[in-house]
């Protein structure tokens, strides 16, 4: 990837490389490139276009050189090092790149054809914007996309703003999102144009606020023309359609003695914002890059990193995501977070042959609880709260055993072979699912006492085994106490 950056630059300066017989000085070329003054966002010379080509090049997947510099990603530095540039110059280049306005890149991308057609004239661009403002009447700004339910739903078209409150719900209003747009697939440039951000404010907001001064100064257009654009855009943008559709799920929700009928829509802004956040955490952040690299090489890194696993990817519109909405076209697919319960029956589970407490559970599975217990035992103070916390950790070990017990029972019928099993009678009664064993399990108690004894011994020895030499020697009273906790779970262990 980093080599691609060098190749890309070599391609850009091919002519210059040929001309010069000596080795090309990437450093001074890049410094002059990024340090040039820019009066407006319009590229005025070939040099500006070269700057655009360098900054917008995707060094990593969907991460341009500019975005890598902005986020302080180490790959930006690595790619410059590959060009043989020294440290101080790298700092200079990265700082200058950071100060370039993102608007410049987005604007060049959007109006590339118009800008390249005529030198130093913005007439083509202005004409295109006028065209876009007229096309706008075919679209509507929305916050919830009905086409994400079914592509044939052309309405409702809603653009809502909801208030923010710490009520614990993922819903509109509780997380900042981008706007979305419904528009004819061939006119999607309108969405891209309205998404341009000037000093952090989207063009859509500026148009809604009728901020003519700012728009005219950015696009170097006279105020009358801008006024026309704003009027055209406004007439098309905000037409809402409050019809519901037969393909939209309409559900009844009981409210006191009556019902409300709810048409359920997908908040596309939130859906794609979630995708963006997950991609950032999993792949695109510098923490993920540094952390994954350090873990591979077993190096130390302060910040650590996070991963979100068990994701399911899905998409709308198949090969034509542009038919669904502006944001859908921009992101193409999105993620679904897993909400599955834990599985009781797992494929890698074996029914114990000799002893459940040796073959099925082991002390290391409860490592966390034993370490936490050690911290509690090592404390000088001893009060109600600490004792309660200690009991909770004992309980968590017992819970683990109960969970394992059910897992083993779930495979008992398939895996238990009476002739080959060397399980103690008590454990047979406890774990096997054969009918005679089950009856005994429900009616008798003596086998259960043996199990309770084994569980408390497991907790007692587990702590010593995990902590090794560091373990504090526990007395008989503590063992007795553990037993009390286990006895409380008697029925759950049955």
């Amino acid at each position, binding site marked *: 990837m980093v080599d691609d950056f060098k190749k890309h630059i070599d391609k850009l300066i091919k002519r210059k490389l040929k001309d010069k017989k000596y080795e090309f000085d990437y450093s001074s070329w890049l410094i002059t490139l990024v340090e040039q003054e820019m009066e407006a966002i319009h590229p005025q010379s070939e040099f500006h276009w070269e700057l655009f080509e360098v900054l917008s090049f995707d060094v990593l997947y969907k991460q341009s050189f500019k975005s890598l510099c902005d986020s302080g990603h180490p790959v930006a530095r690595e790619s410059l090092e590959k060009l043989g540039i020294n440290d101080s110059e790298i700092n200079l280049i990265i700082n200058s790149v950071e100060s370039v306005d993102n608007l410049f890149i987005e604007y060049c991308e959007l109006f590339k054809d118009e800008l390249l057609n005529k030198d130093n004239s913005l007439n083509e661009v202005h004409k295109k914007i006028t065209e876009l403002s007229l096309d706008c009447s075919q679209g509507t700004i929305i916050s919830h996309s009905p086409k994400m339910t079914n592509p044939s739903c052309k309405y409702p078209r809603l653009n809502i703003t*909801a208030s923010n409150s710490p009520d*614990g719900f993922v819903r509109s209003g509780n997380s900042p999102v981008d706007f979305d747009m419904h528009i004819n697939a061939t006119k999607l440039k309108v969405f891209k144009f309205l998404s341009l951000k000037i000093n952090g404010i989207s063009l859509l907001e500026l148009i809604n606020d009728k901020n003519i001064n700012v728009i005219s100064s950015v696009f170097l257009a006279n105020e009358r023309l801008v006024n026309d654009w704003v009027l055209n855009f406004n007439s098309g943008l905000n037409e809402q359609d409050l019809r519901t559709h037969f393909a939209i799920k309409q559900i009844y*929700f009981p409210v006191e003695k009556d019902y*409300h009928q709810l048409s359920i829509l997908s908040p596309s802004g939130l859906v794609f914002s979630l995708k963006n956040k997950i991609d950032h955490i999993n792949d695109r952040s510098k923490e993920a890059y540094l952390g994954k690299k350090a873990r591979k090489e077993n190096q130390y890194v302060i910040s650590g990193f996070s991963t979100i696993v068990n994701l*399911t990817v899905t998409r709308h519109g198949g090969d034509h995501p542009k038919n669904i909405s502006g944001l859908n076209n921009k992101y193409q697919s999105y*993620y*679904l977070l897993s*909400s*599955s319960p834990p599985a009781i029956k797992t494929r890698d589970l074996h029914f114990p042959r000799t002893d459940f407490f040796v073959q099925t559970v082991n002390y290391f599975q409860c490592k966390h609880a034993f370490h936490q217990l050690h911290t509690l035992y090592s404390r000088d103070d001893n009060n109600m709260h600490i004792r309660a916390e200690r009991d909770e950790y004992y309980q968590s070990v017992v819970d683990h055993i109960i969970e394992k017990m059910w897992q083993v029972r779930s495979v008992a019928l398939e895996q238990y072979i009476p002739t080959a099993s060397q399980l103690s009678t008590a454990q047979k009664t406890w774990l096997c699912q054969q009918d005679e064993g089950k009856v005994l399990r429900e009616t008798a108690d003596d086998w259960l006492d043996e199990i309770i004894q084994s569980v408390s011994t497991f907790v007692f020895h587990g702590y010593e085994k995990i902590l090794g030499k560091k373990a504090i020697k526990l007395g008989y009273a503590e063992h007795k106490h553990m037993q009390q906790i286990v006895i409380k779970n008697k029925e*759950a262990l049955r």
Partner: protein
Amino acid sequence: MIGEVKKLLIIPHINVHNANALSSPYTIGFPAMTAWLGAVHALQRQLNAHDIPVVFSAAGVVSHDMDLQTYKGENDFVRSIVGTGNPLDKTGARSAFIEEARCHLDVSLVIQFDNITIDERDNLLDAVSHLLHAKMKMAGGDIRDFQPPFCINSEEGVTEDLIKLQRALMPGYALIERRDLMIDAMENGADALDALIDYLAIHHQCDKDEDGKVTWSSSRKTLNNKPAGWIVPIATGFHGISEQGKAKNQRDPDTPHRFAESIVTLGEFKMPHRIKSIEDILWRYHQEGDLYLCQQAAQVAKAKKRDPEPHSIESEF
């Protein structure tokens, strides 16, 4: 509320085939809580139509097994939905379809009921079995079979009653609301999506000992240094996004209509032997302002504690 006797109807091990696993636009897996309360409500309506005046006031759901229909290739990081393109079109090709995630489930329902005398219980159980066999759907899926439903009384604070119930539901995982985790994070300034992701992500950290040896460890976010449990995102209701009124094409012109979106919060799957009261697993409908919720009493109590009403503050002075 010690001493309150709850009458409970348990429908054990309902096998649901092809239930809707797409519980909200952000989640896949266990069906939304609204689907379960909806099924219980539909059952009540059908029973009422058969002249059984039962009222189902709350319900809990315990998952015994779930088989989600997704596929993950050998080197894939993400899963994709296994879809079916039925029926085939006239040329025999697969028809175009919108991805619909499905899952097969084995769940038990715990339903709190009222308005039925002890003598009428057998009648109720017969009718429930009949309806479940005949025409009910659950979470959009077909009911394949279930074990015979039964009624029990559970007195709040009586351990024997609770144990009896717990044994009937084991082994399984009851769905419990953990909105408190989200509220806590959001009150500390996190936005809703960040708060949700933070609890679902696996955080990798490394430590260096005195000899310079590096050890990496991975964990989920803990709560007061304790594992938070099996935390999942769950859809628990809807958020009304338009004014109540009428809309063209609505199913029923006589019922007030609103546009809405699914809301998601955190939940926990917990083995029933860990619950301290039956109330811990019961969910109820609740509507307040723009929010249409399925919620648990414990969460309401926590929210009240967190946000005392103004007059209670005044009374302290």
